[in-house]
């Protein structure tokens, strides 16, 4: 190997040192996601506070991983929870089984459930991976940044 080759080799090293790194300093810097990214689920309410979910269990039928459990109950005059006739008394998603295919979102005729962008979903205990309706009705505390259209990393 001649001296010239070494200079050429180190030239690449020094040139690369001046470039902006392609990596992100996760977890300090969160990886941005695209609008279509499917992460943690969220249940939605109408503006008047009523839940959109009517407990029809279409999401349960669509789920290939069998990770959703819905128990429906009738709305009454005194106790009105959802806009429809019935509401979901229990709505649970087992996040450790979920494969984030988004079929529940596709199946829901009322846009009551959507997959949002939050992807940091680890827990210390398995039981905590079963998300209840109250957890799903509140937005995820940590939202990752959204990548604008056509933005490169």
């Amino acid at each position, binding site marked *: 190997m001649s001296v010239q080759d070494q200079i050429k080799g180190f030239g690449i090293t020094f040139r690369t040192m001046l470039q902006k790194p*392609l990596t992100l300093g996760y977890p300090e810097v969160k990886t941005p*996601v*695209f*609008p*279509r*990214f*499917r992460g943690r689920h969220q249940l939605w309410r109408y503006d008047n506070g009523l839940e959109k979910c009517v407990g029809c269990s*279409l999401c349960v*039928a*669509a789920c*290939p*991983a069998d990770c959703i459990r819905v128990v429906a109950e009738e709305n009454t005059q005194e106790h009105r929870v959802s806009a429809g006739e019935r509401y979901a008394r229990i709505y649970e998603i087992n996040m450790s089984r979920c*494969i*984030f*295919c*988004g*079929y529940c979102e*596709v*199946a829901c*005729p009322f846009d009551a459930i959507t*997959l949002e962008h939050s992807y940091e979903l680890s827990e210390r205990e398995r039981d905590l991976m079963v998300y209840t309706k109250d957890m799903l009705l509140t937005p995820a505390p940590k939202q990752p940044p959204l990548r604008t*259209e*056509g*933005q*490169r*990393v």
Partner: protein
Amino acid sequence: MSTDQTDVFALEAREALEAARREGRELAETERVVAMVEARTPQEALARTRANEANANSAAPGSREPMMINLGPQHPSTHGVLRLVTELDGEVVRDIHPVIGYLHTGIEKQCENKTFWQAITLVTRMDYLSPFFNIHAYTQSVEKLLDLEVPTRAQWLRVMISELNRITSHLVWLGTSGLELGAITVFFYAYRERDRALDLFEMISGERMNNRYFQVGGCADDMPPGFEKLLRQFVTEMPSRIDEYEGMLSANPIWLERTRGVGILPADQLIDLGITGPALRAAGVDLDLRKARPYSGYEHFDFTVPVGTNGDAYDRYLIRLREMRESVRIIEQCLDGMPEGPHIADDRKVVLPPRGELATSMEALIHHFKLVTEGFQVPEGEAYSAVECPRGELGCYVVADGGPKPVRVHMRDPSFVNLQALRPMAKNAYLADLIAMIGSMDNVMGGVDR
């Protein structure tokens, strides 16, 4: 029993084995290997190895018992959990016995309990480096059974995404097989581009891997705004990136030394073993399903199928790199001539109605409920259709009985079939070359075990 007697027995046994070898019978050896393979617990394996050692010590001087070495299943150079029971004579591999099944997840069986729609999310997980090809083969078979016409735009979208997937799959192969042979830089370079391609997957399908983007009848969604621009940026930069990889490897003395002349099998033997894909084309057989049996509108694209001459690991490397260039060309043609029209077929008995109609049309809502809860009915029959996956012919055989669930889904996975070539290849090769061979065959264990 005296030592002399034992020696005599061992000599006799060896002579019998030699006689069996001359006559082409390798019974005793095979049985011993089977016993090794069947050892489930470490204690048992140890006991068996000790017994083997005792046998080896008692053998007459000069006779060489092959040493049994377990390569894998947890080994960085076996491309996943592949276990090779290797018979070594010094540095030379006398024989290998692949043991598979460590990644078996029963996907084919699980498909029988899911509707045709749900099974899409399962088949994508088999060969985890080429998720789009898995669904493509599956959806094509189901569409064949349904006699469903896929819109041109959907076909072109499928071709575009498939070719992008071919690039990412080849990049993983390039990075990891370079890593195994000591070229660590190329790994970082290859994964740099792969991550950008995964970004594009995320943008169009919502997932970076195991994408369920292709649906029966077309694609789940159209291209999002800004996608075309990003993809065009990617394909204009990609050829110069491939030049970089070639600059690092093609004339690299270490790379040439490790890959040239390694893992050569004659073309007719490869055909006999059912090998497809780059491994077959490297040996000079011009077989590419995209040309031989065009599907999904591949006949409209202008591309060449790279064919090698020697059929060694170096040729396979060259062919994969050239295939990436051809994929770039196909993606460019897709972007230039993307036809207008719907991204999914308009068949209310099979395809979910458009989202907007659910709030206004009662009929759409009924179809939606029926499709989600029951799934669509597929007429009785069986269909096989194959796509050219980065590793070869990926076929899917679906049997339907008229109900909403498949009776049988079988995948002809090229990784599984190509694994057969490893044994004749590895015989009487050096152990170090075996690593290069595993790398050059590009078997994905998720596809082998399913």
